[in-house]
């Protein structure tokens, strides 16, 4: 993991969370300048995530292109009631990576695909950890929260998210039963949710 501030990933054209949402909502499939602005804002984030998952620069470029052309062709696919821009784009990117790995016969998780965009409805987005992603110190926050996990919890979460390992594969990797892996990931996610949440309430 890098010690660099993940905020660096978002510095270009950075604005408030509301600005980011507005930027995505301005996509209309007609004005490439808007797509350019969205790319300037999120291009590195999408490429970074794709690179972390696929570990292949060329494929990561193709996934990044797929992601931005997908939101260009379906400009109304983003629903700010369902997810923050970062969460939405991260889900879209990861799912496209998984689809690509599936088509290439590479290891993939048990399920997941392009259709699995965030479905949860946050009744009160203002209290959601989503908006943490738009905060200036989000990077340090995420790293700080991850550092509070046990090594086994962090490895389990990162293996499931970045490496798309199945529970069975993670259980072999960690030499623990699959049920234990699930418990560790759930505990880790709850810790992260708790760790990231209070900062939002302060804003």
């Amino acid at each position, binding site marked *: 993991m890098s010690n660099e501030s993940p905020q660096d990933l978002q510095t270009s054209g950075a604005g408030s969370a509301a600005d980011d949402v507005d930027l995505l909502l301005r996509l209309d499939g007609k004005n490439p300048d808007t797509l350019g602005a969205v790319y300037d804002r999120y291009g590195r984030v999408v490429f970074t995530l794709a690179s*972390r998952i696929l570990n292949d620069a060329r494929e990561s470029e193709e996934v990044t292109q797929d992601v931005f052309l997908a939101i260009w062709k379906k400009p109304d696919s983003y629903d700010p009631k369902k997810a923050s821009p970062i969460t939405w784009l991260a889900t879209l990117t990861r799912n496209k990576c998984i689809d690509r790995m599936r088509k290439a016969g590479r290891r993939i998780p048990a399920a997941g695909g392009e259709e699995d965009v965030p479905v949860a409805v946050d009744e009160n987005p203002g209290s959601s950890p989503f908006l943490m992603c738009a905060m200036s110190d989000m990077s340090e926050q995420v790293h700080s929260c991850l550092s509070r996990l046990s090594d086994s919890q962090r490895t389990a979460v990162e293996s499931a*998210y970045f490496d798309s390992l199945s529970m069975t594969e993670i259980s072999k990797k960690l030499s623990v039963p699959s049920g234990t892996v699930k418990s560790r990931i759930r505990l880790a996610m709850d810790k992260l949710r708790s760790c990231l949440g209070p900062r939002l309430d302060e804003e």
Partner: protein
Amino acid sequence: MTDELKEQAVMYALGQLAEDERAAFVSALRSNAELAVLVGEYEAVLGAIALSAEEAIPPASLRERILREAGGGEETVVPFRRPIERKRSSFVPWAAAAMFAIFCGFLGLQVAELKRENAELARLNDPENIRLVALAAASEEYPDISANVAWNPESGIGFIETKDLPPAPSGKTYQLWVFEEGNPAPVSAGLFDPAASVRASFQPDRPVEKAVTFAVSLEVAGGRPQPEGPVVLAGNAQGS
């Protein structure tokens, strides 16, 4: 909410539920607002984790490629046209043949223009108009590689044939550059994949006034507007 349901929510957010489990969970999700909020929060946590990945910088050309595909912008790095054929032969006859093919492709094959084309072809293929440049290894990592370039200053089209150049490492690509007289910033002449072919035609991104050096560098996939990676081949066009 039970720990088991929370685990299912986490697995759902991670895309780790099997199809039947997923269908049942989605059904529960529609009728359980608390569960839907929890899933949203788990997805947000995962979105935050995405930001913890070590930063990777996309090539500068990617933005333009995306905008171009979307209907605007222009691409700066033009991939090499693929070679017409892969059979090895002596370099100069091959270059002349390929020059003919490209030339025909550019001008078309309309019968009415054949006479003019033939005259032009003869001029372009005249050995007097083609400059041969030998590129030598410029990196200790690849000491035994070499390449030949056939360059026609009049048409601004050239051909490169590499020898013993290994495939670019994963995530990398070879990029050809043309340095022109009086300009320290080289002009990109495209990307090159020796795994696909040892030879290819090229045309610099913009007209080159007077080529003085040809060089090949190893760049990140997608290429760069200006060279940033190590130069592996270089040759002086003035000495040819």
